[in-house]
């Protein structure tokens, strides 16, 4: 990157299925004020505001304009960004580019979703191809169900492994004061939960949450002058696939698909040999349990087909050797437009040692990797570090 960029502050709302007490502006404002307070900064000091959500999930276009009072963007330069599930990370990517280019020194990134207000199922059908897919399309469960069936058939994983991921996420969420689904569930509870679309059960899927996340990015000088614990963005990478190519996920594919291509490029930039050792914690985008196990493999935390064994052996538990989603992840909180930014913010909190109840304490957290999913065919990866040596 041309110039170094750090996260110098951030904040999030409490996430919940119902936030009848606030409208969209007020929801966004909660996160923005939390981020400004965390960075000990006023809105006047912000040079640019990058803003986004999942397009039309609230049944409202041009949210950047409607919510300008809450985001603090009034009169400031900035962009609206909307890239599906990745949007929170894409906003950060745009912010990083804004600062790395030298155009701005302090960029405020804001992502939100108030899912209860819109018809997300109907709008998701608009993600399907209007000619070849929309007449068949349902909601998001189907894609992951196909992936899960393929995963079990190919690698011999069982529904119990999905249940283990479901339990890990919700037990971690119980340690996170901001999380939505803080469920004290057992593997049996997960296996007994309602079948949505074989083999995906209710507890195998993420909730529909309301919430917002905001982060302030700054150039190196500002970060060093103003922030006691800057978290440096060391690398970002994105990659797309053609949509039909991955209309369902054959988990045995050897094709150079988005997640693996992006990970290998990012690792090359950083000189990573073994990501499971290089990164101390992972915050990954897992709308369904099975997606988490596939991410392990795509990120090369294990060999293809071994993802479920990591869960089986508690390797990715909050106190395991490769902690994944100590926050509870997307499975516990999915306010779409904020979800991918929450992965980055939660990773940053881990590096700062400020994650609170879900802080990983079994090892020093110096480096973290955050992932995002957009639709199911593209990703944004963000590598963070507490130092510039990495």
């Amino acid at each position: 990157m041309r110039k170094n960029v750090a996260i110098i502050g951030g904040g999030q709302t409490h996430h919940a299925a119902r936030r009848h007490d606030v409208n969209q502006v007020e929801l966004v404002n909660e996160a923005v004020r939390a981020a400004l307070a965390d960075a000990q900064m006023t809105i006047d000091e912000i040079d640019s505001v990058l803003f986004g959500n999942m397009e039309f999930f609230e049944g409202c276009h041009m949210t950047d304009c409607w919510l300008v009072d809450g985001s603090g963007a009034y009169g400031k330069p900035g962009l609206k960004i909307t890239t599906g599930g990745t949007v929170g990370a894409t906003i950060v990517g745009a912010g990083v580019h804004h600062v790395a280019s030298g155009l701005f020194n302090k960029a405020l990134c804001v992502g939100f979703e108030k899912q209860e207000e819109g018809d997300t199922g109907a709008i998701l059908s608009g993600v399907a191809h209007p000619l070849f897919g929309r007449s068949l399309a349902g909601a998001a469960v189907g894609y992951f169900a196909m992936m899960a069936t393929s995963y079990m058939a190919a690698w011999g994983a069982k529904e119990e492994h999905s249940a283990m991921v479901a339990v890990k996420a919700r037990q971690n969420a119980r340690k996170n004061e901001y999380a939505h689904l803080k469920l004290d569930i057992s593997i049996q509870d997960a296996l007994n939960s309602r079948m949505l679309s074989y083999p995906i059960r209710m507890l195998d899927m993420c909730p529909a949450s309301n919430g917002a996340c905001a982060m302030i990015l700054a150039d190196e000088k500002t970060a060093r002058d103003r922030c006691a614990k800057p978290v440096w963005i060391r690398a970002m990478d994105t990659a797309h696939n053609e949509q039909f190519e991955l209309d369902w996920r054959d988990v045995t594919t050897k094709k150079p698909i988005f997640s693996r291509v992006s990970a290998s490029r990012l690792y090359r930039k950083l000189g990573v040999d073994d990501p499971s050792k290089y990164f101390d914690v992972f915050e990954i985008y897992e709308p369904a349990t099975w997606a988490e196990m596939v991410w392990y493999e795509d990120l090369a935390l294990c060999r293809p087909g071994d993802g479920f064994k990591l869960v089986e052996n508690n390797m990715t538990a909050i106190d395991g050797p490769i902690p994944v989603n100590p926050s509870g992840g997307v499975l516990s909180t999915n306010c779409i437009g904020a979800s991918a930014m929450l992965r980055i913010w939660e990773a940053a909190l881990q590096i700062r040692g400020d994650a609170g109840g879900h802080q990983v304490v079994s090892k020093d957290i110096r480096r973290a990797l955050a992932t995002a999913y957009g639709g199911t065919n593209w990703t944004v990866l963000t590598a963070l570090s507490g130092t510039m040596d990495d």
Partner: protein
Amino acid sequence: MNPEHDYGTFESDQRIVAHSRYFAGLMGSYFFVRLRDEQKIVGARCEKCNKVFWPPRSTCGRCFSVLSLENLTEIGPLGTLETFTIVKYREPVHPRKAPFVYGIIKLDGADTSMVHFVDGVDFQKLAPGMRLRPVFANKRNGNILDIDHFEPLDSY
């Protein structure tokens, strides 16, 4: 391929129906309940900027001050027409059948304006600066159409 058959430009019709439910928030809830139950219109005053905003809001966009229920203040009901248009064409998306008048109306005591219908007016006499008053709907359910329309003050 049958050369006798027409394989020309094919088109597919699609329709997406989406329902939404919006929460009005702290200030919006107060606005709609007062409009529905008392036929009163409120805005929010930012003391720092000395501005009264319609619709009422929880953050002053200009100075980022937090505004709360204490900042709410009654505005109108009378207002001034700032600009207008007379809609002459019909479209399914229009809320009314043409011809009808859209006005931009600044209520007394407010620094920002609202869009609404202006009825009961001779089109020839429409002019910015015209004084207007709201006519409230008989049946109100907490909607901006609880103000049915505005009409000229002078005709009464």
